[in-house]
């Protein structure tokens, strides 16, 4: 059983979340919410905890303290009688099915063709029949502009193409939430724009809630509904892009932005 | 059931000395041959390389058992002299594992980054100095884990000397004990296995210490993780010793 959320219009809630790696406290009693359909970008220096937040949502890491809620269900804990105990793998898998992730290194399965990469999740996790999964795959390949690559091997594709397939693969699961972990950082500069344009398109045409970690400030400014500046595991500033990028309140934000934007 | 245990242990221990002698003798010869032929395979001279390669392929490609039987039973017919079992054993173990060891040395030397060679050339070191002062010390750390396995293989190989009537531990168990205590065969062989296990642990302990010394020599910490790469080059050398 899961703990019902108190607000109807919260898709993601981090409640007093603590994450420790050994002695290193990466997230310290973090609290924030994300509304359904919102596009939130996380910026900040390396090690500030931004990627950890994504990894916690994707259950690639476990919280050291606090709770995470997704779409009204508690990801990290279940109710046993009148107590809350840490959730087991099965429960986390269930809740996790609503969340998709696109990785910096694409992580396509090299031993499968593109089509099978796209249908694997829907068939094995969602239990879709093969015909439906394949129809969905074709639809998404058309969306990302790679219809002709349906039978190609990932190793035959360029970085930009692989990332677009990875995006299609995540979308094939029809997620409520999509996590983007520095998805253009491993791409040749000339391929970055194509992927970002695709993401912007998806963000504008679907109800998916986005949580995005990126160094592409232009993209962040253009597409986000909200930007959160992180430093040392804390949210330093949380505002709409126009405000945060032109007139940041916080000194730390200003310092970070001037360093990053100067390098162009 | 355990009343005869001390008899078993003492009988088997009578073979211990020969086992240790065969193993150590084989190790010494194997080390020497590994470096000689390993470096020979990297020689500039094609003839030297080919000759070394032939040696390696012949000794690796034939069965140890057959080699032993040949040297003990067949060679005397050819040359007219008998060979003492221990000596025959040491020669075969040394030559055989020297061939595997040559691949280890070759692989380790080749794995030293090219930049090191170039640095040494830039300092105008002679090839011999280059090898001795720069390349080999760095290669040594890489060599130790595969050699550890190889030496344990060699130890296990010493058990084969029973086939040529050397009175090492396996011989003691088989010829002396099994004849008279066949109903306790399981226990007897278990004791034998434990003896070998202890010797193998001793070898590994020694080699770990050697690895630490070799790493200190080049200011490095020896790596803990066993990589697929280092394993495939040890396995490539057909060394039956697998996991590093």
């Amino acid at each position, binding site marked *: 059983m899961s703990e019902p959320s108190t607000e109807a219009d919260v898709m993601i809630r981090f409640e007093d979340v603590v994450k420790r790696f050994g002695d290193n406290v990466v997230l310290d009693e973090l609290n924030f919410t994300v509304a359904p359909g919102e596009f939130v970008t996380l910026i900040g220096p390396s090690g500030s905890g931004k990627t950890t937040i994504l990894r916690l949502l994707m259950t690639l890491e476990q919280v050291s303290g606090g709770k995470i809620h997704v779409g009204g269900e508690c990801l990290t804990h279940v109710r046993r009688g009148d107590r809350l105990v840490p959730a087991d793998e099965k429960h986390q898998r269930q809740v996790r099915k609503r969340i998709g992730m696109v990785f910096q290194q694409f992580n396509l399965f090299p031993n499968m063709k593109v089509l099978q990469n796209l249908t694997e999740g829907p068939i094995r996790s969602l239990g879709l029949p093969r015909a439906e999964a394949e129809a969905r795959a074709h639809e998404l390949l058309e969306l990302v502009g790679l219809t002709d690559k349906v039978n190609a091997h990932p190793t035959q594709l360029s970085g930009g193409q692989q990332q677009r397939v990875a995006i299609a693969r995540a979308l094939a699961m029809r997620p409520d939430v999509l996590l983007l972990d520095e998805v253009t950082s491993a791409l040749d500069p000339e391929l970055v724009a194509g992927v970002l344009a695709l993401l912007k398109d998806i963000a504008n045409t679907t109800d998916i809630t986005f949580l995005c970690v990126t160094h592409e400030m232009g993209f962040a400014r253009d597409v986000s509904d909200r930007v959160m500046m992180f430093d040392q595991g804390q949210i330093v500033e949380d505002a709409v892009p126009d405000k945060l990028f032109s007139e940041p309140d916080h000194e730390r934000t200003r310092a970070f932005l001037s360093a990053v934007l100067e390098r162009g | 059931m355990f009343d005869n245990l001390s008899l078993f242990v003492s009988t088997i221990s009578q073979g211990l000395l020969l086992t240790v002698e065969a193993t150590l003798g084989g190790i010494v010869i194997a080390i020497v041959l590994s470096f000689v032929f390993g470096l020979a395979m990297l020689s500039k001279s094609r003839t030297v390389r080919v000759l070394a390669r032939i040696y390696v392929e012949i000794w690796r490609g034939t069965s140890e058992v057959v080699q032993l039987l040949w040297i003990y039973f067949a060679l005397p017919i050819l040359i007219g002299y008998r060979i003492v079992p221990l000596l025959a054993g040491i020669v075969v173990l040394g030559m055989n594992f020297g061939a595997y060891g040559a691949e280890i040395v070759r692989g380790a030397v080749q794995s030293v980054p090219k930049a090191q060679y170039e640095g040494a050339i830039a300092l105008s070191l002679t090839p011999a100095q280059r090898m001795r002062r720069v390349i080999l010390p760095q290669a040594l750390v890489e060599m130790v884990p595969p050699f550890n396995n190889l030496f344990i293989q060699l130890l*296990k190989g010493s058990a084969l000397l029973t086939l040529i009537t050397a009175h090492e531990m396996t011989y003691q168990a088989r010829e002396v004990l099994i004849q008279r205590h066949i109903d306790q065969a399981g226990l007897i062989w278990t004791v034998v296995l434990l003896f070998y296990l202890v010797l193998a642990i001793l070898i590994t302990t020694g080699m770990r210490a050697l690895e630490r010394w070799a790493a200190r020599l080049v200011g490095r910490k020896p790596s803990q993780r066993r990589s697929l790469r280092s394993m495939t080059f040890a396995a490539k050398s057909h060394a039956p010793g697998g996991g590093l």
Partner: protein
Amino acid sequence: MNWDWNFFWDVFPDVVSDGLLITFEATVYGSVIAYLLGLVLALLRRSPVRIVRGVTWAFIEFIRSTPLLVQIFFLFFVLPDIGLKFDPLTTGVIAIGLHYATYAAEVYRAGIEAVPVGQWEAATALSLPRARTWRAVILPQAIPRVLPALGNYTISMLKETPLLLTIGVLDIAGAAFQEGSERFRYLEPITVAGILFLVLSYSASLLVRWLERRVGTVH
């Protein structure tokens, strides 16, 4: 020089016809056992249950560090006592397979660990069940990489099959020894055996090197 060519050609066909098939059988069956059991052991080594991991590790280390010859004797004497009356070849095959399974386990382990962690993470992101992740994502990437190493172990097994002559199996070496003991002249028969093993293992190693090249290009 005491070499007798007549005797050499005399025993050659006998050694080949009697021994070759047995040698092949021992090598092939031993390899099958080693490859399958090795994978099982490798997976057990990754079990979340600590005791399973520990016992598997101890088992692997014990078998790897002790002589195959002694293990052959052990099984030869002990199996009948517990009711398993196998013929010598079967006992030998089990011993060889078991011994080399422990080597194969380490090879599989390294292959599995070489699969990039991102693959595991992508499988998690798609909520694939664990068994499916192993079957469809991890093992298909781990196993091709380790085939050359496994191939080399088959060659090693080939060369250790002569140990079975000690329990009465007439493989190439056993047949050679028998021929030799009939006429009290071992030189030529054992030389035949030696040459045969050389030819067999060299051809097999060429095969393995070809395999290495093929597997290398896939990834």
